[in-house]
């Protein structure tokens, strides 16, 4: 057995192709990516994008038609037993062994993986306590809630100390408490050195947990980068919103002067006044249509209008760098700053931008 060098990636996928029997198109169509050791990597995509197939190949449930995939330097197709020893899978839906008691689910899992009796008993008890299941370890899982089942599946996955953990939509259908708990657990497992490949439809989850994110569609990886870099992909997706009060409300020209000085700032491509009406979406007229989702801005109330309060939105390549200059411009124009914040494109906007809005 070859011992992989410590600099080999945790997961390495090269030109992976999968064509299912009875299918005319490739479910996975030339996918390549790497997951570094100790990384949380997110695989995102609409239903049917090829995520499940990709994970299927990596977890030995799907035989690839072409290309290669390896985990910790071990080829998936050539040595499935070696792979199974190093990975753990937490599926979307419970596949817990309902014939066994909770604790036995863990100890038998460990036994399947050659973990010695003493060690598996100690580990099972420790994990059950850690995941808040210690008090109900002698029950069967029939009476477990969705959140408990999910935690138990994570405990089971950890019983044989895998190197790579596959999490398929781990917090789908969970209450907020369970979701937060799992996020914390996932982070701390990762800090202990576990490499995690995560799929999710929850953009917030991907954004919060993943160091890098690949977005897949129609069997191909469209982008693969950090969340921050992905958000920069959307042209003009970055804006600075500044609310200010014109001090001398009798100065009729102050409003236009303020607008002109903001427009004159270096790098600003467009200045837009946020209407005082009920809805004021980002980039209304000329902006991209995707940006109409998920953007919230506080409309100026009629009272504020009377008090001389106006809100402008500044579009620029790097809106963050405008903060100082914009505040200065407001002050110079004889107004004061009431609020100033950056509006960034969300991951969801990136996702929709790349994969479109039509239903699958």
């Amino acid at each position, binding site marked *: 057995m070859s011992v992989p060098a410590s600099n080999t990636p945790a997961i390495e996928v090269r030109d992976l192709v999968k064509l299912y029997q009875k299918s005319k198109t490739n479910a996975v169509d030339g996918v390549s990516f790497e997951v570094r050791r100790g990384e949380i990597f997110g695989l995102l995509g609409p239903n049917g994008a090829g995520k499940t197939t990709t994970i299927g190949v990596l977890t030995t*449930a*799907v035989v690839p038609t072409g290309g290669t995939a390896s985990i910790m330097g071990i080829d998936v197709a050539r040595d499935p*037993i070696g792979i*199974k*020893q190093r990975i753990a899978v937490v599926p979307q839906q419970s*596949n817990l*062994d*309902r014939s066994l008691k909770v604790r036995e689910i863990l100890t038998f899992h460990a036994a399947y993986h050659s973990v010695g009796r003493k060690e598996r008993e100690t580990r099972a008890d420790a994990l059950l306590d850690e995941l808040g299941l210690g008090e109900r370890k002698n029950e069967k899982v029939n009476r477990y809630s969705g959140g408990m089942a999910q935690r138990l599946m994570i405990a089971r996955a950890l019983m044989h100390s895998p190197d790579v953990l596959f999490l398929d939509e781990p917090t789908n259908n969970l209450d907020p408490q369970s979701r937060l708990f799992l996020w914390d657990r996932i982070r701390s497992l990762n800090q202990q050195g576990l490499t995690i490949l995560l799929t999710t439809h929850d953009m917030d989850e991907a954004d919060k947990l993943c160091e890098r994110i690949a977005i897949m569609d129609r069997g191909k990886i469209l982008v693969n980068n950090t969340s921050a870099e992905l958000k920069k992909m959307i042209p003009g997706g970055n804006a600075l919103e500044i609310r200010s009060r014109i001090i001398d409300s009798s100065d009729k020209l102050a409003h236009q002067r303020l607008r002109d000085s903001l427009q004159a700032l270096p790098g600003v491509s467009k200045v837009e006044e946020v209407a005082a009406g009920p809805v004021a979406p980002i980039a209304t007229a000329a902006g991209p249509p995707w940006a109409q989702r998920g953007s919230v801005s506080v409309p100026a109330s009629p009272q504020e209008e009377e008090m001389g309060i106006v809100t402008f939105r500044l579009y620029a390549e790097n809106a963050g760098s405008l903060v100082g200059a914009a505040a200065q411009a407001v002050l110079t124009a004889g107004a004061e700053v009431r609020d100033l914040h950056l509006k960034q494109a969300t991951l969801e906007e990136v996702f929709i931008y790349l994969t479109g809005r039509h239903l699958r």
Partner: protein
Amino acid sequence: MHSKSRFSLAAAAFFAILQRDIVITGREFVPFLLQALMQPLFFLFIFGKVLPGIGLAAGAFVAVMLPGIVGLTIFLAAMQGVTLPLVLDLGFAREIDDRLLAPLPVPLVAIEKVIFAAIRGVIAGSVIFPLAYWILGDRYAVRSDHVAMLAGMILLTACVGAGIGLVMGTVIKPEQISLMFTLIFTPLLFTGCTYYPWAALNNIRWFQVVTLFNPLTYAAEGLRYTMVPPVHGRVVPTLGIYWVLFAMCASILGTVTVGTKTFRKRVVN
């Protein structure tokens, strides 16, 4: 842990999975026995006690029929031990996933099912002898000079049932289960020479030929060969024992080969 050979990893996983099944069955041993023995119990009572008692069957008939009942009991216990759990597991429960992710070749997960189911069959088969003795009393007649061979026949019968169970379990979809049970089960049950000896079918030649396609026929005839004592010094005619052994081994080999292949197809795409 990573330094263990693939072989020892697979062996450890295999025995752990077998142990799981044994632990679960051990916990439900009484329901298992009830399930396996209820039907033969009534068969023995009606055919061994009631019918001869009211003069509708000769006493000797019991001796010829007992091996058939033993065979059927073993066969069904083994078959049910693999078919139903497998249909549910492969259909939607997916509880087997954890075992499929254990470090052993996928076909071994299926083989484990067969071996475990065969153990169930052997247990059911062994329990039926004292039961028959208790119900039949004087009419209980089993020759004792073929005991080793009888043990072998019980084991083979269990393997035949488990093998067929594997094929059925991997082929049947959950939504078809009741229909398929009727379509496969009923003919299997009645063409398997369990309630009549094969040689007695000489007069219905076509049916006699039909029964030869049922593996259960060989099991029943083999058990008859090892169990039925000579009547008035004459050995009861059965299918040739070498044919029986050959057919049973062929059936086991064939069903396990086909079954593990279809199993693999169901779990690995």
